[in-house]
Protein backbone atom coordinates (compact mmCIF):
# COMPACT_ATOMS: atom_id res chain seq x y z
CA UNK A 1 0.00 0.00 0.00
CA UNK A 2 2.90 2.28 0.78
CA UNK A 3 4.13 1.63 -2.76
CA UNK A 4 0.92 3.05 -4.15
CA UNK A 5 1.40 6.25 -2.20
CA UNK A 6 5.03 6.42 -3.35
CA UNK A 7 4.01 6.15 -7.01
CA UNK A 8 1.31 8.78 -6.52
CA UNK A 9 3.84 11.22 -5.05
CA UNK A 10 6.27 10.32 -7.83
CA UNK A 11 3.55 11.18 -10.36
CA UNK A 12 3.05 14.55 -8.65
CA UNK A 13 6.80 15.24 -8.73
CA UNK A 14 6.97 14.44 -12.45
CA UNK A 15 3.97 16.69 -12.99
CA UNK A 16 5.70 19.52 -11.11
CA UNK A 17 8.89 19.15 -13.16
CA UNK A 18 6.94 19.01 -16.42
CA UNK A 19 4.91 22.12 -15.63
CA UNK A 20 8.00 23.99 -14.40
CA UNK A 21 9.69 23.31 -17.72
CA UNK A 22 6.53 24.22 -19.66
CA UNK A 23 6.15 27.46 -17.73
CA UNK A 24 9.73 28.68 -17.96
CA UNK A 25 10.92 27.53 -21.38
CA UNK A 26 11.20 30.61 -23.63
CA UNK A 27 8.43 30.90 -26.27
CA UNK A 28 6.92 27.48 -25.51
CA UNK A 29 3.53 28.66 -24.24
CA UNK A 30 2.10 31.53 -26.31
CA UNK A 31 1.01 34.60 -24.39
CA UNK A 32 -2.72 35.32 -24.38
CA UNK A 33 -3.51 38.98 -23.67
CA UNK A 34 0.09 39.50 -22.55
CA UNK A 35 0.25 36.68 -20.01
CA UNK A 36 0.75 32.98 -19.49
CA UNK A 37 -0.83 30.95 -16.66
CA UNK A 38 0.91 30.21 -13.35
CA UNK A 39 0.92 26.46 -13.90
CA UNK A 40 2.65 25.55 -10.64
CA UNK A 41 0.14 27.53 -8.58
CA UNK A 42 -2.73 25.69 -10.28
CA UNK A 43 -0.97 22.36 -9.76
CA UNK A 44 -0.24 22.93 -6.06
CA UNK A 45 -3.89 23.79 -5.37
CA UNK A 46 -5.26 20.77 -7.21
CA UNK A 47 -2.85 18.43 -5.43
CA UNK A 48 -3.81 19.96 -2.08
CA UNK A 49 -7.53 19.16 -2.43
CA UNK A 50 -6.80 15.43 -2.75
CA UNK A 51 -4.05 15.02 -0.16
CA UNK A 52 -3.96 15.41 3.61
CA UNK A 53 -2.59 18.66 5.02
CA UNK A 54 1.13 17.81 5.44
CA UNK A 55 1.78 16.31 1.96
CA UNK A 56 -0.36 19.13 0.51
CA UNK A 57 1.82 21.68 2.29
CA UNK A 58 5.05 20.05 1.09
CA UNK A 59 3.93 19.99 -2.54
CA UNK A 60 2.74 23.59 -2.13
CA UNK A 61 6.16 24.55 -0.77
CA UNK A 62 7.99 22.88 -3.68
CA UNK A 63 5.74 24.55 -6.27
CA UNK A 64 6.15 27.89 -4.49
CA UNK A 65 9.95 27.61 -4.37
CA UNK A 66 10.14 26.78 -8.07
CA UNK A 67 7.78 29.66 -8.91
CA UNK A 68 9.92 32.03 -6.86
CA UNK A 69 13.32 31.07 -8.28
CA UNK A 70 11.93 31.50 -11.78
CA UNK A 71 10.94 35.01 -10.85
CA UNK A 72 13.58 36.47 -8.58
CA UNK A 73 16.10 33.80 -7.49
CA UNK A 74 14.93 34.26 -3.90
CA UNK A 75 12.32 32.61 -1.68
CA UNK A 76 9.34 34.91 -1.55
CA UNK A 77 5.63 35.41 -2.01
CA UNK A 78 4.73 32.13 -3.69
CA UNK A 79 6.71 29.85 -1.35
CA UNK A 80 5.17 31.34 1.79
CA UNK A 81 1.64 31.77 0.46
CA UNK A 82 1.40 28.35 -1.24
CA UNK A 83 2.76 26.61 1.89
CA UNK A 84 0.04 28.19 4.01
CA UNK A 85 -2.79 27.96 1.46
CA UNK A 86 -2.10 24.31 0.55
CA UNK A 87 -2.00 23.28 4.21
CA UNK A 88 -5.35 24.98 4.86
CA UNK A 89 -6.83 23.61 1.63
CA UNK A 90 -5.65 20.09 2.46
CA UNK A 91 -7.12 20.33 5.96
CA UNK A 92 -10.45 21.73 4.73
CA UNK A 93 -10.73 19.19 1.90
CA UNK A 94 -10.33 16.38 4.43
CA UNK A 95 -12.66 17.77 7.08
CA UNK A 96 -15.12 20.38 5.81
CA UNK A 97 -15.60 20.33 2.05
CA UNK A 98 -16.07 17.61 -0.53
CA UNK A 99 -13.45 17.71 -3.25
CA UNK A 100 -15.91 17.74 -6.15
CA UNK A 101 -15.34 19.82 -9.29
CA UNK A 102 -17.59 22.78 -8.43
CA UNK A 103 -16.29 23.13 -4.87
CA UNK A 104 -12.70 22.94 -6.06
CA UNK A 105 -13.32 25.41 -8.88
CA UNK A 106 -14.97 27.89 -6.54
CA UNK A 107 -12.27 27.54 -3.87
CA UNK A 108 -9.37 27.78 -6.31
CA UNK A 109 -10.95 30.78 -8.07
CA UNK A 110 -10.96 32.66 -4.77
CA UNK A 111 -7.46 31.43 -3.85
CA UNK A 112 -5.85 32.11 -7.27
CA UNK A 113 -7.39 35.60 -7.45
CA UNK A 114 -6.21 36.41 -3.92
CA UNK A 115 -2.71 34.93 -4.43
CA UNK A 116 -2.01 36.69 -7.72
CA UNK A 117 -3.47 39.96 -6.43
CA UNK A 118 -1.16 39.64 -3.43
CA UNK A 119 1.77 38.98 -5.74
CA UNK A 120 0.80 42.05 -7.77
CA UNK A 121 0.58 44.12 -4.58
CA UNK A 122 4.05 43.09 -3.40
CA UNK A 123 5.78 43.13 -6.78
CA UNK A 124 4.33 46.24 -8.35
CA UNK A 125 2.26 48.42 -6.04
CA UNK A 126 4.60 48.25 -3.03
CA UNK A 127 7.64 48.44 -5.31
CA UNK A 128 6.34 51.86 -6.32
CA UNK A 129 6.06 51.36 -10.07
CA UNK A 130 4.14 54.12 -11.80
CA UNK A 131 0.97 53.06 -13.65
CA UNK A 132 0.87 49.76 -11.73
CA UNK A 133 -2.83 49.47 -12.60
CA UNK A 134 -1.90 49.18 -16.28
CA UNK A 135 -0.01 45.95 -15.55
CA UNK A 136 -2.95 44.55 -13.65
CA UNK A 137 -5.38 45.25 -16.47
CA UNK A 138 -3.01 44.23 -19.29
CA UNK A 139 -1.56 41.10 -17.70
CA UNK A 140 -2.91 39.98 -14.34
CA UNK A 141 -6.58 39.60 -15.26
CA UNK A 142 -5.62 37.38 -18.18
CA UNK A 143 -3.16 35.44 -15.97
CA UNK A 144 -5.78 34.87 -13.27
CA UNK A 145 -8.37 33.61 -15.80
CA UNK A 146 -5.84 31.32 -17.51
CA UNK A 147 -4.64 29.94 -14.17
CA UNK A 148 -8.22 29.14 -13.14
CA UNK A 149 -8.80 27.35 -16.46
CA UNK A 150 -5.60 25.34 -15.91
CA UNK A 151 -6.78 24.52 -12.39
CA UNK A 152 -9.94 22.97 -13.87
CA UNK A 153 -7.89 20.85 -16.27
CA UNK A 154 -5.34 19.82 -13.64
CA UNK A 155 -8.16 18.90 -11.24
CA UNK A 156 -9.22 16.08 -13.56
CA UNK A 157 -5.63 14.93 -14.13
CA UNK A 158 -4.90 14.83 -10.40
CA UNK A 159 -8.25 13.22 -9.66
CA UNK A 160 -7.31 10.47 -12.10
CA UNK A 161 -3.86 10.07 -10.47
CA UNK A 162 -5.42 10.02 -6.99
CA UNK A 163 -8.15 7.53 -7.84
CA UNK A 164 -5.74 5.25 -9.73
CA UNK A 165 -2.95 5.37 -7.19
CA UNK A 166 -4.71 5.26 -3.85
CA UNK A 167 -5.31 2.33 -1.54
Amino acid at each position, binding site marked *: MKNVKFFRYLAYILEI*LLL*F*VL*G*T*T*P*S*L*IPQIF*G*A*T*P*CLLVALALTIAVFE*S*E*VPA*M*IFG*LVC*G*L*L*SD*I*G*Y*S*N*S*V*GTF*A*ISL*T*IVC*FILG*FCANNFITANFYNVLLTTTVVVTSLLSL*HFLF*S*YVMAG*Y*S*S*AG*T*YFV*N*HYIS*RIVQTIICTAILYFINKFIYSTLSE
Partner: protein
Amino acid sequence: MKDFLKSNSLKIFLSTVFVVIVLSVFTNSIHSNMVSSTLNGITYPLSKVTAAATNDDDRSIDEIRAENEKLKKENAELRNQLVNYYDTLTENARLWKFYDLKKENPQYAMVPATVLRRDSNDEFYSFTLDKGSTSDISVNDPVVSQNGLIGWVSEVDLSTCKVVTLLSPQTSVGAIDNRTHDTGVVSGSAKYCDKNCTTMSKLNADHKVKKGDIITTTGISGLYPKGLIIGEVEDVCYDTYNSSYYAVVRPYDNIKEITELAIITDYTGQGEVLINSKTEKD
Protein backbone atom coordinates in the same frame (compact mmCIF):
# COMPACT_ATOMS: atom_id res chain seq x y z
CA MET B 1 -10.73 21.08 16.53
CA LYS B 2 -9.01 20.65 19.91
CA ASP B 3 -7.32 17.53 18.55
CA PHE B 4 -6.13 19.46 15.55
CA LEU B 5 -4.60 22.20 17.70
CA LYS B 6 -2.57 19.54 19.51
CA SER B 7 -1.74 17.54 16.39
CA ASN B 8 1.69 16.97 14.86
CA SER B 9 0.39 18.32 11.55
CA LEU B 10 -0.02 21.78 13.03
CA LYS B 11 3.44 21.66 14.60
CA ILE B 12 4.99 20.59 11.28
CA PHE B 13 3.04 23.33 9.51
CA LEU B 14 4.14 26.08 11.91
CA SER B 15 7.77 24.90 11.80
CA THR B 16 7.73 24.83 7.98
CA VAL B 17 6.21 28.30 7.72
CA PHE B 18 8.83 29.60 10.16
CA VAL B 19 11.66 28.04 8.13
CA VAL B 20 10.26 29.42 4.86
CA ILE B 21 9.93 32.92 6.30
CA VAL B 22 13.50 32.79 7.65
CA LEU B 23 14.71 31.55 4.24
CA SER B 24 12.78 34.35 2.56
CA VAL B 25 14.38 37.03 4.74
CA PHE B 26 17.79 35.38 4.31
CA THR B 27 17.61 35.05 0.51
CA ASN B 28 16.28 38.57 0.06
CA SER B 29 19.07 40.10 2.09
CA ILE B 30 21.89 38.15 0.41
CA HIS B 31 21.88 38.35 -3.39
CA SER B 32 23.75 35.15 -4.17
CA ASN B 33 22.44 32.39 -1.96
CA MET B 34 22.54 28.65 -1.41
CA VAL B 35 18.81 28.10 -1.91
CA SER B 36 18.61 29.58 -5.40
CA SER B 37 21.96 28.06 -6.38
CA THR B 38 20.78 24.62 -5.30
CA LEU B 39 17.40 24.87 -7.03
CA ASN B 40 18.99 26.37 -10.14
CA GLY B 41 21.57 23.58 -10.08
CA ILE B 42 18.77 20.99 -10.06
CA THR B 43 16.68 22.62 -12.77
CA TYR B 44 19.56 23.90 -14.95
CA PRO B 45 20.07 20.77 -17.11
CA LEU B 46 16.33 20.45 -17.72
CA SER B 47 15.94 24.11 -18.64
CA LYS B 48 19.06 23.95 -20.82
CA VAL B 49 17.64 21.07 -22.87
CA THR B 50 14.19 22.63 -23.30
CA ALA B 51 15.57 26.10 -24.06
CA ALA B 52 17.77 24.64 -26.79
CA ALA B 53 14.85 22.65 -28.17
CA THR B 54 12.62 25.69 -28.51
CA ASN B 55 15.05 28.11 -30.20
CA ASP B 56 13.53 29.00 -33.61
CA ASP B 57 10.19 27.47 -32.61
CA ASP B 58 8.22 30.16 -34.46
CA ARG B 59 8.64 28.40 -37.84
CA SER B 60 5.76 26.56 -39.42
CA ILE B 61 5.81 22.80 -40.08
CA ASP B 62 6.10 23.40 -43.82
CA GLU B 63 9.12 25.62 -43.29
CA ILE B 64 10.72 23.03 -41.04
CA ARG B 65 9.97 20.27 -43.61
CA ALA B 66 11.48 22.36 -46.41
CA GLU B 67 14.51 23.05 -44.29
CA ASN B 68 14.73 19.37 -43.41
CA GLU B 69 14.78 18.39 -47.09
CA LYS B 70 17.42 20.99 -47.78
CA LEU B 71 19.52 19.80 -44.88
CA LYS B 72 19.28 16.18 -46.01
CA LYS B 73 20.80 17.16 -49.36
CA GLU B 74 23.47 19.22 -47.67
CA ASN B 75 24.15 16.36 -45.29
CA ALA B 76 24.97 14.06 -48.18
CA GLU B 77 27.45 16.59 -49.51
CA LEU B 78 29.02 17.21 -46.14
CA ARG B 79 29.24 13.60 -44.97
CA ASN B 80 32.93 13.43 -45.65
CA GLN B 81 33.74 16.48 -43.63
CA LEU B 82 34.68 16.66 -39.98
CA VAL B 83 32.34 15.07 -37.42
CA ASN B 84 32.05 18.23 -35.38
CA TYR B 85 31.46 20.47 -38.39
CA TYR B 86 27.93 21.47 -37.40
CA ASP B 87 28.88 22.22 -33.83
CA THR B 88 31.69 24.44 -34.97
CA LEU B 89 29.48 26.13 -37.53
CA THR B 90 26.74 26.86 -35.01
CA GLU B 91 29.18 28.22 -32.47
CA ASN B 92 30.86 30.29 -35.16
CA ALA B 93 27.53 31.78 -36.29
CA ARG B 94 26.67 32.61 -32.71
CA LEU B 95 29.98 34.33 -32.05
CA TRP B 96 29.98 36.06 -35.43
CA LYS B 97 26.99 38.13 -34.31
CA PHE B 98 29.14 39.78 -31.70
CA TYR B 99 32.26 40.06 -33.83
CA ASP B 100 31.49 43.54 -35.16
CA LEU B 101 30.77 44.85 -31.69
CA LYS B 102 34.00 43.33 -30.41
CA LYS B 103 35.98 44.64 -33.39
CA GLU B 104 34.73 48.19 -32.83
CA ASN B 105 35.36 47.93 -29.10
CA PRO B 106 38.41 45.74 -28.50
CA GLN B 107 38.41 46.75 -24.83
CA TYR B 108 35.20 44.80 -24.17
CA ALA B 109 35.53 41.40 -22.49
CA MET B 110 32.42 39.56 -23.68
CA VAL B 111 30.82 36.24 -22.74
CA PRO B 112 28.22 34.86 -25.21
CA ALA B 113 25.10 33.50 -23.51
CA THR B 114 21.73 31.94 -24.34
CA VAL B 115 18.37 32.61 -22.73
CA LEU B 116 17.71 29.68 -20.40
CA ARG B 117 14.22 30.63 -19.29
CA ARG B 118 11.71 33.44 -19.21
CA ASP B 119 9.49 33.92 -16.24
CA SER B 120 5.76 34.06 -16.82
CA ASN B 121 5.27 36.19 -13.71
CA ASP B 122 7.44 39.10 -14.81
CA GLU B 123 5.72 41.84 -16.81
CA PHE B 124 8.96 43.43 -17.98
CA TYR B 125 10.25 40.42 -19.92
CA SER B 126 13.27 39.72 -17.71
CA PHE B 127 15.00 36.40 -18.37
CA THR B 128 17.66 34.02 -17.08
CA LEU B 129 20.89 33.41 -19.01
CA ASP B 130 22.96 30.23 -18.95
CA LYS B 131 26.12 31.89 -17.62
CA GLY B 132 26.91 32.64 -13.99
CA SER B 133 29.70 33.59 -11.63
CA THR B 134 31.86 30.72 -12.91
CA SER B 135 32.03 32.64 -16.22
CA ASP B 136 33.08 35.87 -14.42
CA ILE B 137 29.60 37.38 -14.60
CA SER B 138 28.80 39.86 -11.85
CA VAL B 139 25.84 42.02 -10.87
CA ASN B 140 25.33 45.17 -13.00
CA ASP B 141 27.22 43.79 -16.03
CA PRO B 142 25.63 45.13 -19.25
CA VAL B 143 23.87 42.59 -21.50
CA VAL B 144 23.99 43.25 -25.24
CA SER B 145 22.98 41.81 -28.58
CA GLN B 146 24.68 42.53 -31.88
CA ASN B 147 22.35 45.54 -32.22
CA GLY B 148 22.99 47.16 -28.86
CA LEU B 149 22.08 47.23 -25.18
CA ILE B 150 19.38 44.81 -23.95
CA GLY B 151 19.60 45.11 -20.16
CA TRP B 152 21.76 44.45 -17.12
CA VAL B 153 22.52 41.57 -14.78
CA SER B 154 20.51 41.88 -11.56
CA GLU B 155 21.33 38.58 -9.84
CA VAL B 156 24.05 35.98 -10.28
CA ASP B 157 24.58 32.48 -9.04
CA LEU B 158 27.08 29.81 -10.05
CA SER B 159 25.59 28.76 -13.37
CA THR B 160 22.90 31.32 -14.23
CA CYS B 161 22.21 35.03 -14.06
CA LYS B 162 19.02 37.07 -14.09
CA VAL B 163 18.74 39.95 -16.58
CA VAL B 164 16.54 43.01 -16.15
CA THR B 165 15.72 44.43 -19.58
CA LEU B 166 15.52 47.98 -20.94
CA LEU B 167 11.72 47.61 -20.77
CA SER B 168 11.73 47.54 -16.96
CA PRO B 169 11.24 50.63 -14.78
CA GLN B 170 14.07 49.21 -12.61
CA THR B 171 16.45 50.11 -15.45
CA SER B 172 17.82 53.63 -15.52
CA VAL B 173 20.45 54.36 -18.18
CA GLY B 174 22.07 57.71 -18.94
CA ALA B 175 21.41 58.29 -22.65
CA ILE B 176 22.30 60.77 -25.37
CA ASP B 177 20.80 61.58 -28.76
CA ASN B 178 23.65 61.06 -31.22
CA ARG B 179 22.42 63.78 -33.61
CA THR B 180 21.44 66.59 -31.25
CA HIS B 181 23.45 65.62 -28.13
CA ASP B 182 20.35 66.00 -25.98
CA THR B 183 20.68 63.89 -22.85
CA GLY B 184 18.12 62.03 -20.76
CA VAL B 185 17.47 58.89 -18.78
CA VAL B 186 16.21 55.71 -20.45
CA SER B 187 13.83 53.71 -18.30
CA GLY B 188 10.98 51.26 -18.90
CA SER B 189 7.35 52.25 -18.72
CA ALA B 190 4.09 50.39 -18.17
CA LYS B 191 2.56 52.19 -21.12
CA TYR B 192 5.17 51.10 -23.66
CA CYS B 193 6.77 47.84 -22.44
CA ASP B 194 4.21 45.64 -24.22
CA LYS B 195 5.06 47.42 -27.49
CA ASN B 196 8.76 46.57 -27.01
CA CYS B 197 9.52 50.25 -26.36
CA THR B 198 11.17 52.16 -23.55
CA THR B 199 11.22 55.88 -22.73
CA MET B 200 13.94 58.53 -22.57
CA SER B 201 12.77 61.02 -19.98
CA LYS B 202 14.15 64.21 -18.39
CA LEU B 203 14.64 65.92 -21.76
CA ASN B 204 15.25 69.68 -21.67
CA ALA B 205 12.34 71.94 -22.63
CA ASP B 206 14.28 73.19 -25.69
CA HIS B 207 15.38 69.71 -26.83
CA LYS B 208 15.69 68.91 -30.55
CA VAL B 209 15.06 65.16 -30.37
CA LYS B 210 12.90 63.86 -33.20
CA LYS B 211 11.69 60.60 -34.73
CA GLY B 212 14.46 58.47 -36.21
CA ASP B 213 17.26 59.74 -33.95
CA ILE B 214 19.58 57.07 -32.56
CA ILE B 215 19.98 56.94 -28.80
CA THR B 216 23.18 55.63 -27.19
CA THR B 217 24.58 55.33 -23.66
CA THR B 218 26.56 58.23 -22.19
CA GLY B 219 28.81 55.99 -20.10
CA ILE B 220 29.07 58.68 -17.43
CA SER B 221 28.49 56.51 -14.39
CA GLY B 222 30.78 53.65 -15.35
CA LEU B 223 27.98 51.08 -15.28
CA TYR B 224 27.51 50.96 -19.06
CA PRO B 225 30.19 51.54 -21.71
CA LYS B 226 29.93 54.78 -23.66
CA GLY B 227 28.30 54.63 -27.10
CA LEU B 228 26.26 51.42 -26.79
CA ILE B 229 23.19 51.72 -29.00
CA ILE B 230 19.92 51.68 -27.08
CA GLY B 231 17.47 52.18 -29.94
CA GLU B 232 15.74 54.59 -32.26
CA VAL B 233 13.33 57.38 -31.32
CA GLU B 234 9.82 56.49 -32.39
CA ASP B 235 7.92 59.44 -30.97
CA VAL B 236 8.37 62.49 -28.73
CA CYS B 237 5.59 63.13 -26.18
CA TYR B 238 4.77 65.56 -23.42
CA ASP B 239 4.13 64.23 -19.92
CA THR B 240 1.48 66.48 -18.37
CA TYR B 241 2.02 64.89 -14.95
CA ASN B 242 5.76 65.75 -14.80
CA SER B 243 5.48 68.76 -17.17
CA SER B 244 8.37 67.45 -19.23
CA TYR B 245 9.11 65.92 -22.61
CA TYR B 246 10.08 62.31 -23.14
CA ALA B 247 11.00 60.25 -26.18
CA VAL B 248 9.63 56.80 -26.93
CA VAL B 249 12.64 54.65 -27.90
CA ARG B 250 12.37 51.35 -29.73
CA PRO B 251 15.36 48.97 -29.28
CA TYR B 252 16.52 47.35 -32.52
CA ASP B 253 15.86 43.85 -31.14
CA ASN B 254 12.58 42.32 -30.03
CA ILE B 255 13.49 41.99 -26.36
CA LYS B 256 10.47 39.80 -25.69
CA GLU B 257 11.80 37.04 -27.95
CA ILE B 258 15.57 37.46 -28.10
CA THR B 259 17.59 34.30 -27.32
CA GLU B 260 21.25 34.94 -28.23
CA LEU B 261 23.10 37.59 -26.21
CA ALA B 262 26.47 38.53 -24.79
CA ILE B 263 27.44 39.86 -21.38
CA ILE B 264 30.14 42.54 -21.17
CA THR B 265 32.16 41.51 -18.14
CA ASP B 266 34.90 44.13 -18.41
CA TYR B 267 35.64 47.32 -20.33
CA THR B 268 37.81 50.39 -20.01
CA GLY B 269 36.32 52.79 -17.46
CA GLN B 270 34.05 50.23 -15.79
CA GLY B 271 32.95 51.37 -12.33
CA GLU B 272 35.03 54.55 -12.36
CA VAL B 273 32.30 56.88 -11.15
CA LEU B 274 30.74 54.35 -8.78
CA ILE B 275 32.80 55.79 -5.90
CA ASN B 276 30.62 58.90 -5.95
CA SER B 277 27.25 57.32 -6.71
CA LYS B 278 27.25 53.72 -5.58
CA THR B 279 23.53 53.17 -5.54
CA GLU B 280 22.61 54.96 -8.73
CA LYS B 281 22.34 53.28 -12.10
CA ASP B 282 23.96 55.09 -15.04
